[in-house]
């Protein structure tokens, strides 16, 4: 299976990346190499192996339902490139 340039552009768009023609070319090559490498795993027989999404055999890690917060609004907004009236400000979403 080979990844096409169109597919790379679609993935880029989903990640809100704008690639130049030359970058698209390079990424397509890189991504295909990565996929080829990953595909080596397909050589293994995994018929009797449960799909694994975590490497550690730990389950059920919880917090008790206790409310606590010492984070201030100033701290919350400290890294915001733009803010107004205690809110994060972003370019207008709806015209």
């Amino acid at each position, binding site marked *: 299976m080979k990844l096409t340039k169109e597919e790379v552009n679609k993935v880029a768009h989903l990640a809100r990346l704008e690639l130049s023609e030359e970058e698209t070319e390079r990424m397509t090559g890189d991504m295909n190499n990565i996929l080829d490498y990953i595909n080596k795993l397909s050589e293994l027989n995994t018929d009797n192996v449960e799909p694994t999404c975590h490497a550690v055999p730990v389950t059920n890690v919880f917090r008790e*339902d206790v409310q606590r917060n010492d984070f201030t609004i100033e701290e919350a907004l400290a890294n915001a490139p733009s803010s107004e009236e205690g809110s994060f400000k972003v370019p207008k979403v709806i015209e």
Partner: protein
Amino acid sequence: MNYEVVIGLEVHCQLLTNSKIFCSCSAAFGGEANTDTCPVCLGMPGTLPVLNKNVVNYAIRTALATNHRINESSRFARKNYFYPDLPKGYQISQYELPIAEHGHLDIELSSGEKKRIGITRIHMEEDAGKSVHDASPDGTLVNFNRTGVPLIEIVSEPDMRSAEEAVEYLKKLRNIVIYLGVCDGNMEEGSFRCDANISIRPVGQKELGTKAELKNMNSFRFVQKAIEYEILRQENVLKGGGEIIQETRLWDANKGVTASMRGKEEAHDYRYFPDPDLLPLVVDEKWIEDERGKLPELPDAKRERFMREHNLPDYDAGVLTADKAYADYFESVVKLYKTPKTVSNWIMGELTRRLNEDEKSIENCLIKAEDLAALLGLIDKGTISGNIAKKVFQDMYASGKKASVIVKEKGLEQVSDTGAIEAIVDKTLEANPDQVEQFKAGKEKVLGFFVGQVMKESKGKANPGMVNQLIRDKLKS
């Protein structure tokens, strides 16, 4: 050609936990913008989510109350999309392995027909923040207080065939989550929200038609109207030779129409994958049984008990248990005043009428359960008549004063003292010699005239039975 509508509903319930689903911030989120936030719910790099155990408890309870099978193992997944009110660029949700599957609810239609609606699944997820588009002239302001508030999403099968069925299903589901105490069920404020997937197909056709997804319906009435509108719209499109486009449409309550949500039409590609930050969740039998033990009496069981224990007709039991607050109120009154049918009549009659007129909930009613019981007791004791009681009730409703206080202040005690009533009767007979003659001549009907006059003279307070008897005695003597 005749069409059949197919409806599936997705319901989001905000859970009434103290803290958010993955951090310790308050889940109440009503305060000043961005005060209920922390590095975790703001999606700061390097932070890790930790699951609130109570969210799982509430999800299990809801699943049990809606006849689901609870998955022994479930998992959290990332749903990836960009929107300013989603700080991480993904929403933590559940995808392949939700907490519960294969549930159902039985609904009852106005025709009396009963129908089972399948529920595909329940999953847990986090809510997004809130974007305010009109507060600033040159930008959108984002408030993250709601980000990370726990939600359960309840996804039905496409089993409903009319707007009525959809509304009945929603009412039943809302009632259950309120009974469970896991959600406040407030549709207007969005703590209980519903999206509807609607398609139509020619009667007899097996394959589903193309669906539209309806959003922004924040009351049962709007759900009903939006679905009815959408059915007609789709029929008109197909009858005109057009095609239904798969899209999201927003209900516009002012115009009474659904309109395409342009700009979001681009096909979604959420690229779900297991969230590596959250470990698998394992719910064993013991945990399930613990939660089952915490389930309160649910609406259907309560309805049956009201019929059995309080001898109420099915209709009364259905109306009273359709809202937990009403059912609780009824039972509090019945504890103090032991004639349940009378209590039911007053609640379903006078009380509901006034509350509906004022669009007020029974929790905010000034007449407390013990006050209603006391009022009914006054009628039984003969202190006031049933008619006067209705007037006292209106007063209590408006002022919150106790019945005994109002009766005393306004001097409304029923007069059952023979001497006092006799005096009024004598006066009335004296003042109307013509009518007395008519009665003596055999015109029994004038008796009613005299009773009316005496009651009027006593301002409605004379005991009507005694008045009747006394007039009869006097006229015949």
